[in-house]
């Protein structure tokens, strides 16, 4: 079963997505095993909404993002964008969708070409969308810069002349240059200082309101996700552990891992709390291959026998609240 809602509402729909990476060893680089980076991931995203993908490093959230952009082929499952399966499309067939799905990267320093002026960077997208002449492009570029809160004088300057926050604005302008409907934001504010982070978060929100954008927002920071996202999916080692509207994830977390993440979250308003989680460290022997049964069981403070034998399915406990845990309460409408 997958999280389900009225199909027509969904801009993006991911079904049972799977990605395994080979582990190669030795002189001949033989494949000795597989890292199950993403397994059985199902999600949907409505138009104009933000889906938060949270989890610790290595949980597969960036891998999911790269598959949404078709930068990485999936090994199974479907990615439906406006009802079209974009998994495994050739570059040519993918081209119309490239305009619609864009990405903003984490590192505003590494993701801009240092040899291109801001104008050149932004005009690449415009050239692809068919605005040809140089003078034709100047005006839309100035409009783009205005959209992200930058002065038109930025057009002839190079990335190194800008601060981190301004570079992130340029990265956002580049994503918007082709007028996408869906923007995948991969940790877009993690590298920024607190005061700049707020500027970029406000900008992303304004743009969503003005342009009706949908975001897949990848972050390890639950405070940012709780502020910005409508839906939240919590990932652990390649699988979704809990998936629900943001209020439910924060107010009524049902998966032990979600509860651990929330407990570790510093909360300025509740005062000094010596951080103590019941969480054990991941055992090194399971670094590549998760243990049999539930993937979280080695670190789970609430594990019992059943968790060792079988991996639970992502199961609805409510119409829009999905949990992958044996301990989750049953769906209220079922007997």
């Amino acid at each position: 079963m997958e999280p389900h809602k009225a199909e027509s509402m969904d801009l993006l729909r991911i079904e049972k997505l799977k990605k395994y990476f080979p582990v190669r060893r030795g002189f001949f680089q033989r494949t000795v095993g597989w890292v199950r980076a993403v397994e059985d991931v199902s999600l949907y995203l409505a138009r104009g909404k933000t889906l938060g993908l949270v989890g610790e490093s290595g949980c597969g959230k960036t891998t999911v993002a790269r598959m949404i952009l078709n930068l990485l082929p999936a090994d199974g499952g479907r990615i439906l964008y406006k009802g079209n399966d974009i998994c495994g499309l050739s570059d040519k067939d993918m081209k119309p969708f490239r305009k619609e799905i864009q990405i903003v990267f984490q590192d505003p320093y590494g993701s801009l070409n240092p040899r291109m002026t801001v104008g050149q960077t932004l005009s690449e997208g415009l050239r692809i969308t068919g605005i040809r002449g140089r003078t034709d492009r100047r005006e839309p570029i100035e409009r783009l810069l205005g959209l992200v809160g930058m002065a038109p004088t930025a057009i002839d300057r190079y990335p190194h002349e800008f601060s981190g926050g301004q570079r992130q604005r340029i990265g956002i302008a580049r994503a918007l240059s082709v007028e996408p409907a869906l923007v995948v934001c991969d940790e877009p504010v993690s590298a920024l200082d607190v005061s700049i982070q707020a500027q970029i978060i406000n900008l992303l929100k304004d743009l969503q309101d003005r342009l009706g954008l949908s975001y897949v927002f990848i972050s390890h920071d639950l405070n940012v996700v709780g502020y910005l996202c409508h839906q939240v999916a919590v990932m652990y080692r390649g699988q979704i552990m809990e998936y629900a509207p943001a209020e439910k994830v924060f107010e009524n977390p049902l998966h032990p891992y979600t509860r651990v993440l929330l407990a570790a979250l510093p909360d300025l308003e509740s005062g000094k709390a010596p951080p103590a989680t019941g969480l054990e460290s991941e055992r090194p022997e399971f670094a590549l291959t998760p243990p049999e049964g539930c993937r979280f069981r080695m670190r789970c403070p609430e594990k019992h026998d059943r968790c060792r034998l079988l991996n639970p399915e992502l199961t609805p406990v409510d119409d829009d609240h999905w949990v992958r845990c044996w301990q989750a309460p049953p769906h209220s409408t079922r007997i």
Partner: protein
Amino acid sequence: MNVDAMNAPQEVVLSVEGLRVYFRNEEEVARAVDGVDFEVRRGETVCLVGESGCGKTVSALALLGLLPRPPGEIAGGRVRFCGDDLLDRDEEALQVVRGRRIGMVFQEPLTSLNPVFTIGEQIAEPLRVHLELPESQIRQRCLQLLHDVGIDSPEQRLAAYPHQLSGGQRQRAMIAMALACGPELIIADEPTTALDVTVQAQILSLMNRLQHAHDMSVLYITHDLGVVSQIADRVYVMYAGVIVETGAAQPVLRNPRHPYTRALLDSLPNRRKRGRRLYSIPGSVPHPAYKPAGCPFHPRCPRAIDACREHFPGMCVFDDGQVARCPVAAGRKLTDWCRS
């Protein structure tokens, strides 16, 4: 009620007075640290918090004598550690202090550990150099240290190279090295910034436990106000090379007096602010070579008045013992401004 005097232990382990660190090149002088005072008392955790470029790391490097000179220079101030002036000391004398009496933990354990030596060899080094322990005892002591910092199967980890450990384990190993000689003070520079939240919580509670077990003081440098709320007894907020606010951590975070501290807290997102616009501080941090005259925060400050553009404000003591460098917030008269 003076919170500092009430619950803080009195013995000062580290005191920094009027520290100035400049970076010079042909054209300009960057005043990275511009007259900073702080102190750390026995057994307490003090946080130095600020955004990148505010001078918090440079202050720590300077007081340890680790600042590359040139281009850096210490243009003034005093640093006293248990009564001894550290800035007067030569390199040889400093080496006796560093690693033995002051332990250090840095942000990125992968780059601050040496990739070609095993964890065991690196933990053994301070034991050999500073304590001159006989070889027979070193292994035992290393195992004990790894056990203390919560590393599983320490026998195997001793022979591991840094790249074979996870980020959290590497940071634990770094802490084991810092603890090796039983220091009185640990200086930790963003030790959990590169780590996941759950691992961060583990490391913070580990440091908390070890601090109490060994009666150490901790100077903790961070940009993360959430971390400050979890660990700090007292906090110093830095902006553009100066301390702008200080006091016991909880009062400062709950009722910040300096407009900058207020603005930082208001700009933090969380789920309770959903639907409301985040406050964002206009503009950006000034370049350390081109700081504005007067209060360094005035171009971005919502409460700035004309006097803020001309006079560098002194520290003002509020009724409850909190201290902030803002005479406007304190309601002081213009004539009182320049005293700190």
